[in-house]
């Protein structure tokens, strides 16, 4: 029996990609094994830990529990889509400056969740940041520097990627 699958065309970090993928392939495997975008990590595989968070049409999803066939016609943003030729994304800079990572395994997920928040709510309160990041687990930092980094990025002003897009 041939593996049931579908053709998928999606825009990933601004680049159009087309593949034939098995129905059962999860988005995380599509990104990592089909596209070589290994910045997205996988840990709990139960959408509890947040490590595999990516954006689909701007909304945060757990790529471990999201079918690759469901990104057909959609825009996907991964951690590789944050930095530009001009340099790091303000969130990435803020994470470095606030020591918001140690081992770094959870960082791509936190960055993508934080981007989803700031795109929708550019000036969140500390409480709103904590509430939004509740579903992400970090075993190194104790969370405080992460929350401070997101606050710092929010105070730092506009997201250059979004600014360039809206021209």
């Amino acid at each position, binding site marked *: 029996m041939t593996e049931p699958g579908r053709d998928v065309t999606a825009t990933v970090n601004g680049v159009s990609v087309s593949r034939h993928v098995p129905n059962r392939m999860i988005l995380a495997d599509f990104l990592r094994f089909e596209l070589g975008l290994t910045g997205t990590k996988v840990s709990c595989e139960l959408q509890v830990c947040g490590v595999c*968070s990516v954006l689909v049409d701007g909304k*945060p*999803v*757990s790529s471990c529990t999201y079918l690759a066939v469901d990104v057909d016609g959609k825009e996907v943003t991964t951690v590789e889509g944050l930095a530009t030729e001009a340099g790091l994304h303000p969130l990435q800079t803020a994470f470095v400056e606030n020591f918001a990572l140690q081992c770094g395994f959870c960082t791509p997920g936190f960055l993508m*969740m934080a981007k989803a928040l700031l795109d929708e709510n550019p000036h969140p309160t500390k409480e709103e940041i904590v509430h939004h990041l509740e579903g992400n687990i970090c075993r190194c930092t104790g969370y405080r520097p992460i929350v401070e980094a997101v606050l710092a990025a929010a105070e730092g002003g506009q997201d250059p990627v979004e600014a360039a897009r809206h021209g």
Partner: protein
Amino acid sequence: MLPPFELERPTSVAELVAIINDDALPYCGGTELLLAMKMGLLRPRTLVDVKSVAALSGVRLEGGRIVIGASTSHAAVAASDIVARHLPLLKRVENGVGNARVRAQGSIGGNLCFAEPRSDITTVLAALDATVTLMSSRGTRQVDVADFLLGAYWVDREPDELLTEISIPITEEQVAGHGAYLKLQTSERPTVGVVALRRPNGIRVGIGAVSEKPLIVDLEHADGIDYDSMVDSLEPVADLAGSVLYKKHVATVYVERALGALRELVS
């Protein structure tokens, strides 16, 4: 890895209803179905994508009720102006479901059909006298959410029936915001969730997450309540979140706190 399956993407409710059966399961956000498949608990031959039918998503007002399409995401319910205006309690509850990704992916209808005993939504909708509409090629029927929930992961839905929408009566008390929901949650699902609602002739309490399905209790007033006897009819399920004794105790504590929170909202 997920087991292999066929995928159908119907574009109308009629087409969808004609396809589903016990081996062709409705699939929406996948936040619970895909987990059950990963764990080997379910191995359907076909998944039928509910998201491809636009008519099943959205919030509208109809005859003094809020009607929510089954595939509407938790985040979309929380963001709905209609819900904010007529049922602010549901907005707050939806804003606290799971985590931000579950809220973006998961649907309110899927949550009800899966009947995870620790769902926030089942407790609140049962207490609000919500009803669900079930459609099959045999016809359409309405069921109260309180009766729809039969037990843990068990609802009054035949395999060929599709939950199309949820309907909640609009009441003066809920427009005024006289409803509180408090939960104790230390991991991804609550240990106990208690809703307290002002009603025309008293107060309603719904206790969820402790037993296989929520317990609804109507009170004439909030004074002199014997909390211990109230939780007597609970049948707590002991698990990693605590023993039967602990869960009964923590339920009494949260009922008391929820009634206190309601008192503050009303005053």
